[in-house]
C-alpha cells in the first residue's frame, strides 16, 4: 500500500516538475504578497512583530490555499481522474497522496514567505526556530486538510469552483487565528499558557480535519 501511495505522490510531483503549472504561480504570488506586506511593516521592533504574525499567515493563505484547490482540477483537465479512481487502492489513500503533495507545496511556499519576511521586515524569526517550525507545520496541516478536501469537492462538482473560495476562509479561520497569534507571541518573545492554548487549537484542528478529510473524501467521490 505504501508503495502505491509513494507512486501517487511521485506522479504528482513529477508532473508538476515537468509542466510547472501550479507551483511557480503560487511561489511568485507568495513573493509578491510578502514583498507588499513587508513594505507596510514599519515602526518599532514590537510593532513590527505584532503585525508580522497576521501578515505572514495572510500571505501564506492567499498564495497557497487558493492554488491548492487546483490539485484535482489538473487531474480533470488531463483526463487522469477516472484512471486514478480505477487505481487498485483505497480511496482514502488518494486523499492522503493529494494531501501530502499539497503539504509539500505549502511547505515550499512557507519557506519562501518566512525567508522574505526575515529579510525585508527584520522580524526576529530566527530567535525561536523550533517554535516557528512547529507553528508552520501545524498551520500547514490545518490549511492543507481543508483545501485538499474542498479541492475534492471541485473534482466531483465542476460547476462551482469559485464558490469553494467563499467556503475556505470561514473554515480556515481557526487555523489562521491560531497560527497568527502563536507567531505574533513567538516574535514578541512571549510564551506561557496562552501560547500553548493557541498551539493546542492548531493541533486539535489538524487532527479533526485530517480525520474528517479521510472519511468524507471517500463519501464524496463515490459514484
Amino acid at each position, binding site marked *: 500500500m505504501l508503495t502505491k501511495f509513494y507512486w501517487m505522490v511521485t506522479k504528482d510531483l513529477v508532473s508538476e516538475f515537468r509542466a510547472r503549472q501550479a507551483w511557480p504561480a503560487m511561489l511568485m504570488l507568495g513573493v509578491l504578497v510578502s514583498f507588499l506586506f513587508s513594505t507596510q511593516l514599519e515602526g518599532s521592533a514590537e510593532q513590527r512583530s505584532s503585525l508580522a504574525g497576521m501578515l505572514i499567515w495572510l500571505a501564506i493563505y492567499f498564495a497557497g490555499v487558493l492554488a491548492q484547490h487546483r490539485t484535482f482540477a489538473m487531474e480533470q483537465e488531463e483526463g487522469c481522474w477516472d484512471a486514478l479512481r480505477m487505481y487498485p487502492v483505497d480511496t482514502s489513500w488518494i486523499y492522503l497522496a493529494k494531501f501530502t503533495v499539497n503539504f509539500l507545496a505549502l511547505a515550499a511556499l512557507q519557506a519562501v514567505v518566512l525567508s522574505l519576511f526575515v529579510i525585508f521586515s527584520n522580524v526576529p524569526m530566527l530567535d525561536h526556530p523550533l517554535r516557528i517550525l512547529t507553528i508552520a507545520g501545524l498551520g500547514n496541516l490545518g490549511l492543507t486538510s*481543508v483545501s485538499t*478536501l474542498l479541492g475534492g*469537492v471541485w473534482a*466531483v*462538482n465542476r*460547476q*462551482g469552483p469559485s*464558490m*469553494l473560495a*467563499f*467556503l475556505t*476562509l*470561514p*473554515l480556515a*479561520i*481557526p487555523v489562521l*487565528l*491560531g497560527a497568527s*497569534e502563536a507567531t505574533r507571541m513567538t516574535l514578541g518573545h512571549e510564551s506561557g499558557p496562552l501560547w500553548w*492554548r*493557541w498551539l493546542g*487549537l492548531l493541533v*486539535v*484542528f489538524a487532527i*479533526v*480535519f485530517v480525520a*474528517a478529510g479521510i472519511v*468524507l473524501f471517500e*463519501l*464524496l467521490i*463515490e459514484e
Partner: protein
Amino acid sequence: MHHQNRKKLPIHFGTGIVASLLVTALFMAMRLAPTEQSMGPVQRILYIHVSVAWSGLLGFALMGVCAMLYLFHRNLAWDQWSQAANEVGWLCSSLTLLTGSFWAHAAWGTWWTWDPRLTSSLLLWALYTGCLIVRGSIHESHLRARITSSLAILGLLDLPLVIMATRWFRGMHPVAPEMEPMMLLTLLWNLVGFSLFFGLLLTRRRRQLQAEGLLGELELEALAGRKSSLNNRVPSLFPDGGLR
C-alpha cells in the same frame, strides 16, 4: 371534504399556537418587560436578537445532524431536512447580524466592530451562505446531497473551533448580564416562541422540498412515457388533492 379538513386541523392548530406564542412574546418584549436604565427602549431588541441567534445555531446543528443521517441512510428526505435547516438557519443568522447591527449602533455608536461574538456570527452566516451557494450550483439530487452533507459536517466540526478561537480575544459583547425577573421571563418566552416558529418554518419548507422532489420524479417519469409509480404517494403529501 370533511376528511381533508380533519387532516389539516393539526397543522392549523399548531400554526395557531405558534402564532399566539409569538405575538405574546413580542407584546411582552415591547410592553411588559421593564425598560433598561442605561440603554433605554433600544435594549428591547435583545429579546429578538438572542432568540434569532439561538435559532440560527439550532439550524446549523440540525443541518449537520441531518447531513450525517443522509450520508448514513442515503435517503433524500434527510437532505430535504438539511436544506430546510440551512435556509431557515440562514434567515435567522441574517436577522442576528441585522438586529445586532441596529443594537450596536444604538449602544456602542457603531454598526459593526470586530468583536469575537460578532465575528463568529459573521462566519456562521458565511458558512450558511457558502452551503446554500454550493447547493444551488448542483442539479443532480444525490450528488448535491453528498457534497452539501460533507460541507455541512465540515461546518459543524469547524463551528466550535471558530467560536473558541474568536472568543479567546477580548470583546465588548455582553455575556449573560444580570436581569430583572420579568426581563428574564420575557427572554425565555421569546426563546420558546421563536424556537417553535423556527420549527414551523422548517417543517413547512421541508414539505415544499418534498413536493418539489416528487414533482421532479413525476416529470422524469412523464418524459420517459411510463405510468407513474408515484401516484399512490402524491395523495398522502397533498391531503386536499391539489398543489397549493
